């Protein structure tokens, strides 16, 4: 299997099939039927031609990014939807729809083509009940192994009792080693462990001191976010939930993901003034989130609870003060509304701008301090440089995005590549680093903090000069939203951890028929075994820290 992209020969610019008809031509008789999704053309194919279709799209049309796999149960069938796009041009999108019958929901696995499909399909099996042929390891991923039933399928009875076991974990490689090759040792890390950033469980097998096998076991914080969103109304009830997906202060970024998808679904235009406020707030969240990532990373790498961690917390407190002024909350902002934001900047505005300016003025010095303490520190350098290496092709195949992808030299940022909000009007750069290691990912985060500060500064200038009678914070949006039946959309934004996508299928009521969250942490975490094979345990922990996962978003 080749992960290489097709390269245009002799520098000739190759025109890749993008329009619906061109793709249909490429796929030929693999296509059984066509659909129109709001974001992309959809192609219905047979359940046994998944691999062939995806491979053709990847190799011949450059769709090298399997962003998300959505599974759902409809009245008369099961459906898996593969949302494909391209790392080079995010605005090219295509959906591959694979229906299967109710009595025999089996379809071919996409794992041999895109490695990221592994976990996505396990999740689909776990929550919906679709089975995938040719999948290397189809078992439950979020719910306990002994769970009965598939909770997001129709007719699931939520009141039936369930039994969950508490067992000693076994060494999965115990019987696997050759006769005289010596034993492997099993090390259990988590789910309650300070190095796992929450309730992650990492089953690790050591051969000597080297990591022979890592299996991240997730689901210890699976709190039914998708079910919650499916039982709430579009207009007001869903918005508080995104704050709780990636709770490391990325609230506004997550809210934007939902807002963007729902606004495009309902054709809502957001006033420019509100877009600027959104952009500014979102970048503050990104700073807070990266600060936490940097602080806890240093904590992981050299157990430093007193200096860097506290510095990071100090700066986060400042950001939270600004956000609290703006939204009234320290963490769970609930500040966006479909069509805008809930209220204007706090009065007196000058004081608010003053607060932001103070923060921005102090920031360069603070960042300098981080560089002195962390990136310029030889201990940290020798712990992180050339450990946890993630080559770009592997990262792409696992659907890694955000700082993890950019640390592997992949120039991919939705704020620029699929512009939304006010980003395309502002001056800023996408940061990439070519080291592919833990150190690069750290550098990307620190540099992104500075870029975010640039964006905020420009937003503040715009907001200061905005004419008073044009401060329109919300579009006119009806009280109840009922998008047409069967309208489907997949939209993503660049959250702090990467591409945060939302798939919504409307069913003609005021609640979504299916609400699927594509979490960047979920895909990024999948790369952990790749990064840590053959490394020492402390390097594995450093890699885990550099991925900056938040379990609330991994498990949803």
């Amino acid at each position, binding site marked *: 299997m080749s992960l290489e992209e097709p390269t245009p020969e002799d520098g000739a610019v190759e025109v890749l099939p993008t329009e619906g008809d061109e793709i249909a031509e490429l796929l030929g008789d693999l296509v059984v039927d066509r659909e129109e999704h709001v974001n992309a053309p959809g192609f219905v194919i047979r359940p046994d031609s998944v691999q062939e279709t995806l491979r053709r799209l990847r190799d011949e049309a450059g769709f090298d990014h399997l962003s998300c796999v959505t599974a759902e149960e409809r009245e008369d069938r099961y459906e898996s939807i593969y949302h494909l796009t391209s790392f080079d041009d995010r605005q090219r999108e295509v959906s591959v729809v694979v229906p299967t019958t109710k009595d025999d929901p089996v379809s071919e696995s996409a794992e041999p083509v895109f490695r990221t499909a592994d976990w996505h399909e396990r999740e689909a099996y776990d929550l919906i009940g679709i089975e995938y042929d040719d999948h290397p390891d189809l078992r439950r991923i979020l719910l306990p192994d002994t769970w009965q039933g598939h909770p997001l399928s129709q007719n699931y009875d939520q009141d039936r*009792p*369930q039994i969950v076991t508490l067992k000693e974990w076994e060494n999965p490689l115990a019987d696997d080693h050759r006769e005289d090759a010596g034993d492997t040792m099993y090390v259990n890390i988590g789910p309650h462990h300070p190095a796992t950033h929450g309730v992650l469980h990492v089953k690790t097998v050591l051969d000597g001191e080297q990591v022979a096998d890592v299996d991240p076991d997730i*689901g210890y*914080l699976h709190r039914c976010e998708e*079910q919650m969103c499916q039982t709430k109304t579009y207009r007001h009830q869903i918005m508080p939930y995104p704050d*709780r997906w990636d709770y490391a202060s990325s609230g506004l970024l997550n809210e934007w993901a939902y807002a963007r998808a729902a606004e495009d679904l309902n054709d809502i235009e957001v006033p420019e003034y509100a877009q600027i406020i959104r952009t500014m707030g979102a970048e503050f969240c990104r700073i807070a989130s990266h600060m936490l990532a940097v602080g806890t990373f240093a904590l992981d790498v050299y157990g430093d609870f007193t200096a860097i961690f506290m510095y990071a*917390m100090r700066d986060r407190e400042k950001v939270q003060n600004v956000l609290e002024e703006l939204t009234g909350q*320290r*963490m769970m902002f609930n500040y966006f509304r479909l069509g805008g934001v809930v209220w204007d900047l706090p009065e007196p505005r000058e004081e608010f701008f003053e607060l932001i300016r103070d923060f921005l003025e102090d920031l360069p010095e603070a960042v300098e301090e981080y560089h002195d303490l962390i990136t310029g520190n030889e201990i940290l350098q020798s712990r992180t440089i050339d450990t946890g290496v993630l080559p770009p092709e592997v990262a792409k195949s696992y659907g890694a995005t955000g700082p993890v992808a950019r640390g592997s030299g992949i120039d991919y940022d939705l704020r620029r590549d699929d512009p939304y909000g006010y980003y395309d009007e502002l001056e800023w750069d996408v940061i990439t680093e070519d080291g592919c290691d833990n150190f690069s990912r750290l550098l990307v985060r620190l540099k992104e903090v500075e870029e975010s500060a640039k964006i905020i500064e420009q937003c503040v200038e715009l907001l200061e000069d905005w004419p008073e009678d044009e401060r329109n914070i919300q579009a006119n949006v009806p009280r109840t939203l009922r998008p047409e039946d069967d309208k489907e959309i997949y939209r993503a934004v660049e959250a702090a951890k990467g591409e945060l996508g939302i798939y919504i299928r409307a069913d003609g009521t005021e609640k979504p028929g299916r609400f699927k969250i594509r979490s960047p942490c979920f895909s990024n975490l999948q790369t952990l075994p790749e990064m840590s094979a053959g490394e020492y345990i402390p390097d594995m922990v450093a890699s885990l820290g550099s991925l900056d996962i938040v379990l609330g978003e991994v498990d949803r």
Partner: protein
Amino acid sequence: MSSERDTPFVTDDTQVQTETRDARMTGAGADNRFNSKLREAFGSSPFILTKFDQFMNWVRGSSMFMLQFGIACCSIEMMHTYSVKHDLDRFAAGVPRASPRQADVIIVPGTIVSKFAPRMKRVYDQMPEPKFVVGMGSCTISGGPFQEGYNVIKGAEEVIPVDIHVPGCPPRPEALIYGVAKLQQRIAEGESSPVTVKPYELEQFDDLEQDEIVEQLADQIDEDDLVMRYNWADSP
């Protein structure tokens, strides 16, 4: 001893020491740098008369080791409570320990789901007695915003006893500090929390009542495996 004899020299060292100390600390012109609360309460006497259990309660409340235990969103605010600005350490309760065997207090900061509850119970069981629990956030009270979820335990109290509930989603650091201070006060006053019935316990699989689901799982689970059984229909 020798003090009865009228000698020009004082030979009792102890007495000299006591007098000097008293002069320094309590007498006229006492050095006002010795101003601890304890001294105000007890004077300079090296003895404190109290009941032993009262003393122990006071000690317990004044030096609490917290378990470093992060679950969900609330744990971010918990970290802020430990760190600069809010600094829980000022209230004699800020040393996060990574191992349950060294901890006195567990703050449960987040949503508990079916897969995690048995592990949390295990961690709680590993803490040495006496141990205290602060439930942080609405999730530990009722399941919070996720109360209707198919996988969510409707409050920490279903699994372990909780001494103090701090409501909020998430509670502000100030609120958590208040909760911890309340706990310290209760401990110092020797109050214990009421015994609650916990519906979800760890039990052996073959002790479960035989019914449909137990039969279905019989070939997957060993008889002496520990399990937790959730009767969702009876949950609040």
